Every structure is written in C-alpha cells, then in structure tokens.
C-alpha cells in the first residue's frame, strides 16, 4: 500500500516518459504583463514581468535560473507551477500543453509539478502538525486512508532527514533548515516529476544551504526528479545545476551548460554576474594587498 500511495494512481496523468532526450518541461515564448490602474487618475500602467521566455528541463536534471532579485523570476515560477496564468506562450509537460487544459483536466496534472518557496514559515500552516502538513497533498488528491497517509508522511519525514518522532510538532517548533525539509517532504508526497525551488535556500545560513543542496541531489538521484532552481546566487546553484539560464530585465539572455557558462560566457550581464561571484580566497587576497 505504501508503495502505491502517491505514485500517480490516476490513470489520466501523463505516462512516465522514459525518453531521456525529450524535455520533461518545455516553456516557449512565455510572457506576462500586469496592468495597474491608479485611483483618481486615468493612467494605466502596464508592467511586464517577463517576456518571451523559453526554456527546457530534462528528466532527472537541474536547470538553474539566475538573475537579480525582482518579480520576474518568481512570477515565471508561479506561471510554470500553474499558480498564475501567463499572458502568452506555451507550457508543455511531457508534450502536453498545460495552458490548453481546463481546471478539471489540470487537477491530476498538478501533482506532477510542485513548488518550494523562499520562506518556509509562511509556506507552512502554523496550526497543523508536521505529519498533517506532509499528508495534506494526499488528502487533497484523495489518496489512501488516514493511516496510510500518516505512514507515507512519516516515511517522507525520514527521507528528508527529519526525525519522524517529531511528527506532532508544529512548524514553528522547527528551525529554518528543518522547515524547508518539511516543505520538501510535502512537495514529494505526490511523487512529482518536477520540483520548482523559488529562492528556496535564500533564507538559510551557509551550513544549512549546503546540507539541503546535498539532500536535493540525493533525492534527484533516487527518484529521477527534475529541478528548476531559481536563485539570485549564481555560485550556490551552479554546484548542482546541469544547465543555467540567465535572466535579465525579464528576458533570458543566455542559457547553456553550466561549465560552458562559467568558462565562456557570452552576454555582458552574464559576465557581470560571474565577476561578482567571488570566493573567500580571492577576497582575502584582495584585502591583504
């Protein structure tokens, strides 16, 4: 029972694509504009969050999306996670155009794409226990009985490095790093194929950042997960990313293999970003000079 729980029990969900050369996620020409209107004025302000964004994430691989702090990247993440609707473009998951589906058709597909947010304190319901939080997606998708859900939740807790004996604790009783692990466990409940990390490490201290990155790498290897890792910290994400896409002023200016990006960047903004990534060694050297 525990094995089948959360593993796409709905026969309508897209079949697991074993073809490694086809992208799991393909985004083409995605754009989003917001229209703001000020009271007492006739002005209408059109704000473009991002324009003409195209990217691909392959099964079992990580694409890092880096750029300055601003609404563009998060807005894009929310559109891909189907939390918002883009103005134009296509989002294809395993070949299926998600934007053409209605709400009912979309429901079983939502389990395939999950998101981890920047601030775990506000992403977790402070009134629920850890076990209830992790089991909630299963409850929403109507899977299993209560004992089955609990068992799966405890299993996931162990998987992300949390002590399952703490299942009765509420989120505020965990540390920041533990809360993110909780959020990850919840995201894994429905066995998604794509995980979107929206600045998920930004609020953590250096030690926790490394620990969670290692956890994510382990999970990726074990479950063939794909990651879309969004961050303003190029150095942090590049350790575990296969490809990197650089976003500047709402557009993707460069997108290639991580190593190639570091060795031969093309766009001026990319070069700027790389230049600002400095290691402790280089800083110490500069100071003693």
């Amino acid at each position, binding site marked *: 029972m525990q094995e089948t729980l959360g593993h796409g029990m709905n026969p309508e969900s897209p079949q697991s694509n074993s073809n490694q050369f086809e992208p799991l996620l393909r985004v083409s020409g995605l754009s989003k504009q917001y229209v703001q209107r000020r009271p007492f004025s006739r002005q209408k302000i059109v704000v473009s969050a991002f324009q003409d964004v195209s990217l691909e994430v392959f099964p079992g691989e990580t694409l890092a999306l880096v750029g300055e702090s601003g609404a563009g990247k998060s807005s894009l993440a929310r559109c891909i996670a189907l939390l918002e609707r883009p103005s134009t473009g296509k989002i294809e998951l395993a070949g299926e155009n998600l934007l053409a589906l209605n709400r009912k058709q979309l429901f079983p597909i939502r389990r395939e794409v999950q998101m981890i947010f920047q601030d775990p304190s506000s992403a977790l319901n402070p009134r629920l226990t850890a076990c209830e939080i992790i089991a909630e997606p299963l409850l929403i998708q109507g899977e299993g009985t209560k004992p089955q859900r609990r068992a799966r939740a405890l299993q996931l807790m162990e998987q992300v490095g949390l002590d399952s004996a703490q299942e009765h604790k509420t989120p505020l009783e965990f540390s920041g790093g533990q809360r993110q692990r909780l959020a990850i466990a919840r995201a894994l409940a429905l066995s998604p194929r794509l995980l979107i990390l929206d600045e998920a490490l930004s609020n953590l201290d250096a030690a926790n950042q490394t*620990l969670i990155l*290692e956890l994510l790498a382990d999970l990726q290897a074990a479950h063939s997960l794909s990651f879309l890792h969004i961050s303003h910290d190029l150095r942090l994400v590049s350790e575990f990313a296969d490809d990197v896409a650089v976003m500047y002023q709402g557009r993707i200016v460069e997108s290639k293999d991580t190593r190639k990006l570091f060795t031969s960047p093309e766009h001026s903004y990319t070069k*700027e970003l790389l230049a600002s990534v400095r290691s402790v060694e280089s*800083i110490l050297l500069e*100071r003693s000079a």
Partner: protein
Amino acid sequence: MQNLLRVTDLNVSYRGAGSRQHHAVENVSFEIADGEVLGLMGESGCGKTSIALALLSLLPMDQAHISGSIQFRGKELLSTDQSSLRAIRGAEISLVFQEPELALSPVMKIRDQVAEVIHAHNDWKWPRCRAEAESALARVGLAASSRIFSAYPHQLSGGQRQRVVLAQALACNPALLVADEPAASLDARSQNELLALLRKLQRELHISILLISHAPEVQASLADRLLVMANGRIVEQGPFEQLYRNPSHSITRAMLRTSAPASVAEDLDFEMVT
C-alpha cells in the same frame, strides 16, 4: 587600550509557551576594540539578533530575561536608565536591521526619516537636520537628487533602501555599528557594492562594526576577527583568516564552507522555539 565594548557572561532567555524557558544566548563573552570589525556567524536563529537587541536594551522586557554585563566605554549598559540609553541609541551604538524594507516607515520620505534620527540627538532646527540628512544620504552613495530624497521607501530598489538604513545608522557618527545581515536581501552585484561602501566608510570614520552575517564572503570582506556561535554559545573565536585556514570546530568548518558538511548534522542541535 580600553575596549570599546566588553560583553561578559551574557545570558538571554525567553519565556516560551507554557513557562518554558528558551535560552537564546548562553554565557557569551567577547570584546570589540576601537576601529575593529568583529564578525558573528551562526545558524539562523534568535541568538545573534538577541545579542544585537540586548546591546541596546531593545528586548521586550516582559518576555526576555537578561543577565551578565555589557560595558560600553566602561559604562554598564544593563543598568543604565532609559533616557541615557536613548542618547546612546543611534548616536553611539547604531543598529542596522535585517530587511530594510521593514525597518523604514512606509509613509515618511527617506530624507525625513534620516533627519528624525539627527534631530533626536542634536539641538538643531529642522532645516539644518534635513540638510545634514541629505549629506548623510549622499555619503552612502545615493544620488543627490531631490527626487530620490523626497521619495518614499516603496519607490526605491532594495539596494537603495539598504543604503538609506545605513545612512540612518551613520548619521550621528556612532562609535559602534551593529549590522544584522546587511547584505542578505541583495543580489551579488548590490552586495559587493554595499560591502565596498561599508569597507570605505569603516576606514574613513574609524568605526567598530559588529557584523552579523551567515555568508562567509561577507565576513571575508570586512571581518578582522570572527565569532562562531551555535545553540546560543560561542564555539570558536579568533582572527578571520586563522579560523578560515585552520578551523578547529566542525561548525566553523561548515559555516565557512571549507569542507563536506555531512558530518555536521549531528553537531547542530536544531531544538528551537521561535
């Protein structure tokens, strides 16, 4: 040489839910000399910010219990009265908060917010305070235009807001600056600019800084000495370069990212109450 700040056996505990005491800071002792930058590193948690707030006696007195000694220029801060403390806050010891967006009033122009700090510590008339505020803002690199000076916080970028908060802190030429994660909300480019600015100002004004940051790059840019904390206690302290090259504690190693952190998980006890 008398130290600017001497903290001895500082203990801060909070009354948690159900009369449970949470010890945020335990037996912490350290010193800061004139013109020195002391870095404070530790896992995300209340310990570091509690120290920062304790220095200025800003902890909520009904929830927090403090004991120990905080001596600033020989004066014991924990037994100083409120009005003397007010004279010290912002003028001799300044605090730069995390998240500048939250640290500024949303309905006041930034120039006025800096002028308020100046006015609180000087007997000058408002026009003079405003003029001083403008030069304080220019000193931290904000473009000297009335459009910027008359702007409200929500109209500026994150980097600009950080500079405003810095201007507020430095406006009255304090001897000690306590910076709580000064570059946390910024991207790499703005972060480098801010650190360069801090370095320049530190040298020019010869101020001491207590730099709280979990990022090794930030500490490497500014810190002379480093304090590493875990679970409210100091685990290691010493000159930055020495700790970086030769860390003796596994937590130090993890914080400064000098080795595989897998072994660290057992050492870090995450039992905490916010």
